[in-house]
Every structure is written in C-alpha cells, then in structure tokens.
C-alpha cells in the first residue's frame, strides 16, 4: 500500500466519523465530530503540497528536491484557529447546557436522562431549576 493511499484513507475515515458525530443531536458528540473533521482538514491541507518523504522544506541552491513549505504554514494557521474554536465551542456548549438544562443542539427540552434510559431516576422534566 502506498503512502498516499494510507493518508487518503485516514482522511476519509476521519471525515466519515466526523460527519456521523456532527449529525448527532447532542453537543458533546457534535464537538467531537467537529474536532475529527478539523483533524482531517489539517491532514488534507498538509497533503496539498504533495507527499514527499525525507526532503528539506527550505529551498537551497545545494538541494535539488525539497518539500513545499507553504502548506505547513497553512496547516499551522489552521491548527491554531481550529484549536481556539474548539475550546470556544466546548465552553459555549457547556454554558448552554448549564443555562438551558439540555445538551441538545436544537435546544429542545428533552431531559438528558431520558436519552440514557434513566428517565425514571430524576423527576425533573429538564427545566432549569438551578439558581
């Protein structure tokens, strides 16, 4: 199996898993899905400069072959941005859960425990009774 095939299938599997999770109804899974997608995107961007093994990323008169340094700079930017975004969306969904008492993405008042099959254990209907 070639190097390209491995990287391509890794990206494909990450995206597939990411899309599946991002389409789930609850915020934690959606956040995980977005993280997987952003990993896949970073790999994809990295591969956009072609996959080259064992070559320096800096052009020099002495070397004839070198790997494209620009995608690495792009990936760095993308990683920083997605990292910040992921941190933000985690805090936001946590805050939303605490405020609305539901971790559903569409904010419906579905009691969280009902989903886990523990509906009987807590009598509340998801209304936020915290101060």
């Amino acid at each position: 199996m070639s190097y390209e095939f491995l990287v391509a299938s890794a990206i494909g599997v990450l995206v597939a898993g990411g899309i599946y999770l991002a389409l789930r109804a609850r915020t934690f899974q959606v956040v995980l899905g977005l993280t997987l997608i952003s990993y896949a995107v970073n790999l994809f961007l990295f591969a956009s400069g072609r996959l080259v093994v064992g070559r320096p990323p800096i052009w020099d008169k002495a070397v004839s072959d070198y790997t494209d340094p620009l995608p690495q700079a792009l990936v760095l930017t993308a990683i920083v941005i997605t990292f910040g975004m992921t941190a933000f969306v985690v805090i936001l969904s946590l805050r939303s859960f605490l405020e609305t008492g539901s971790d559903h993405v569409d904010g419906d008042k579905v009691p969280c425990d009902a989903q886990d099959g523990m509906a009987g254990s807590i009598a509340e209907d998801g209304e936020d009774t915290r101060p």
Partner: protein
Amino acid sequence: MTLADHLPILPVIIPALAAPIVLLVMRRRPVLGVVVSVASCLTMLATALAMMVQVSDGTILAYAVGEWAAPFGIVLVADRLAAMMLVLTASLALIALLHALVTRADRKGWHFLALFQFQLMGLNGAFLTGDLFNLFVFFEVLLIASYGLMLHGQGSARLKAGVQYVVVNLVGSSLFLIALGMLYALTGTLNMADMGLRVAAVPPEDQGLLRIAALLLVSVFALKAAVAPLHLWLPRTYAVSTPAVAALFAIMTKVGVYSLIRVVPQVFGEGAGAAAWVPAPYLLPAAIVSAVIGFAGVFVARSLSEQAAYAVIGSTGTLLIAVAGWSAGSLGAGLYYLAHSTLAAAALFLVADVVARRRGAFGDNASPGPVFAQRGGVALLFMAAAIAATGLPPLSGFIGKLLILKSVAALPDWGWAWGVILGTTFIGVVGFARVGSAVFWKTAGEGTAPAGPATRADLGAPAIALGLLVALAAGAGWASVYADAAAAQVLDPAQSARAVLTEAGQ
C-alpha cells in the same frame, strides 16, 4: 513611503489598534473606551472615503504587506468595489455603535466595544484582501468576534441559537479549508489574481477536482450569504442577537455575496476550464428560492426582529438574482441594491429594538399591545424602514429594484426574475402592513404601557440609517454610475491581475 501609500492597510490597522486599547481602558475608564471606539469608527469612515476618492478614477491600489512581492506575499487590493464595501461597513458600524451606546446595550456584558472593533477588523480585511487564505483568516477573525457579539447579553435563547451558529460556521470553515487545499494543490498559488491566470493551465485530468474545489468554495460563500438551502441558521441567530449587533450583522451576509462577486470572475472566469462560471447554473434558482423564502418569512413572522431577519434573507435573494446574470449591467444594479439592502436591514433591526424597549413584556411581538410612548414617531420610522426593505418609492429600494428589473430584462431567464422580484415585493408589503397595523394601530389590554425610555434619543440611530437611504435615493445617479463602474472593474480580472502582479512587486 508616505502615509498615503499605506492607505489600503489602514482599515485593518485602525480597529486592530483600537480593540486592545478599548480592552485595556474599559475596566477603569469606560468613557475613554467609548471615545476610542467612536474615534476608531470615524477614522475608518474617513479612510474609506479617502480610498473611495482615490480609486474612483479606476486605479487599483495594490499593497504588498511587508513588501513581499505579489504572488508570494499577501497583497491587499483596494478597487471600487472594496472601497464601496469599506464605506458601507464604516457607516453601518457608526450607526450600530451609536444605537448600542444610546440604549446602553454595550454595558450588558463585558468587552462589547473591543469585540465590535475586532469584528470591524475582520470585515475590513475580508473586503480588502487579495489572497484566498488571507480571506479565510479574516473570515475567522470576523466570525470569532461575531460569536462573542452574538452571545452578548447572554440568556438561554441566545445560547441555544449561538451553539447552532457556531457549529454551522465551524463546518463552513472546514469546507473552506478543503477547497483552499485543493485549489493550492492544483494551481500552486493562493493569490487570487495569480490563481486566475494559472487556473487555465490545470491539466485535463484534474478538471474534475478543479470543479469540485470551485463548487465547495462557492457553497461556503453561499453559506455565509445565507442563500437557500443554506439559510436555516440565520433567522434564529439574528432574531435573538442584541439589536445593535444584528444591525451590524446585516453586512455579514453581504460578505458572502461580496466574496462570490470577487472570487468567481477573478478565479473561475472564462479561462477556468471545467470550473468556468461554475456557480452560474445554480445561482439563479437558489436566489429565487431565497427571495421567496425570505419574503414569505416576512409575511408570517411572529416578531419584528424575526421579520427583519427574514427580510435579510429575502434581500440577499433579490441581490443574487441580479448577480446571477454576471453581466456588468445587472451586477452594477446589484451592487447599488447591496448598499441599500444592508442599511435597510439595519434600520429594521433598530426599529424592532425601539419598539421592544417601549412595550415592556410585549417586546417586539407582532401582536397588539398597550399604547406606548412616542407611538406616532416610532410608527413613522417603522413605515419608512418597511418601505425601504420592500422597495417602494420614494426610498432607494425602489430605485435598486427598478435597476435590477431593467438590467435582468436582457437575460434569458428574465421572466422568472421579474415574477419573483415583483411577487415577493407584494408579499413583503402585505407582511409589513400586517405587522405594522397590529403593533401600531390596534390596542389590546387596558392601562398604559410600562414606563419606557423617557427620551427620544434611541430614535436617532434608525433615523440616521433611513437618512442615509434617502441620500442614496437622492444621489442615485452618482451612486449607480459608481456601482456600474465597480461592476465593470470586477468583471475585468485582467485589469486587477496587472495591478496586483506588477505594481505590488515594485
């Protein structure tokens, strides 16, 4: 180099400097923070106007950041379209900021003014940049600021809508990056002008990839512009945002439209092989559906702010009907309508807030409530904003729609465009009339309204927005000539490629 040579980067620098200053002084001396914010917006407006004067004769200012020559470094490009968008942003920002200060919305949470400046930095940068990856970065800057602004004031409704807004935009950013990666792999450049030249040399076996990349990029812009079927995130987000923020957000959907207008002729123009004019077959149907959905939403909206949010979708649809022709005439008409619809949408959001502030528990619901203070004056403002949003005379919406109707008459699908524009105008008029009569004519419930704001000061910002629309209508001759010239310049990518790839290198 003199300061004038650095003109194109000033709209990015000014808010980038103002934001941290505001952040630092806000805790101890809030008045100073307000002064800095207002001064920054005024300076931005002056810079944008200066730039507009400089580019109005057709010159294209290309600014190589750090003097790195064009295809390798990041280049900022100021042409007629960019200058127009900068003036629009700065004017809108002043109106939104004024309303936020008058209604004291900036005190409902931390860092409103600093985030506001960062938002402007992202907007200005997105309008100026000539580099696709830099466009992505400025998109992220404006999105991050917009998340903060959207959630400003907190509350469970905002948090619920906020999660959806953030998730949708994160997915959009991922798609943007994938499209960028593909385009870079195919062309070996990220500079828009350079990419436009190199895209013709993409080998035949890669044409399919090129087409996919182009369609991905266009769908990201469509998501930002809230074009059907990618509009579902908008109504809830805009309707629950702080009204001053929603007024500023009126330009956010236009960023998507702007990117479409900027990137498609430049990169995916005639010579782009399989990707030539790639959105063309889909854009008109999508625009028509957006216009219908938007004005249908105006018709059935349950509150004034929801109605304003749907008016944003409808106006974007109308605007894209003009853009979908990709001819200088229809694009020019579209650009005039773009300026108009942004200000009209902002006015609607601000009037909704003015009403909500006076009706206490009734808020801006489209149902009869008690008589409230200054009902006549507010009703007049609402009527003017509704006239602007639907495009009735005498305000500039009428001229904008007339120009669009006239310009699309030369296109093959003009029957659909005419039918939809005229039909949605009618639906919009009925919808605004229904809500207006419920809120301003009917009275339900005994007693007087809860004590609203005693002053008329909060009528100022929407009145200024409407005043600008009057000016746009009065100066329609000059404005439409400018818009036509901007459209012609955008549709001639060779011109900007020359400016970017030769001048910026020197």
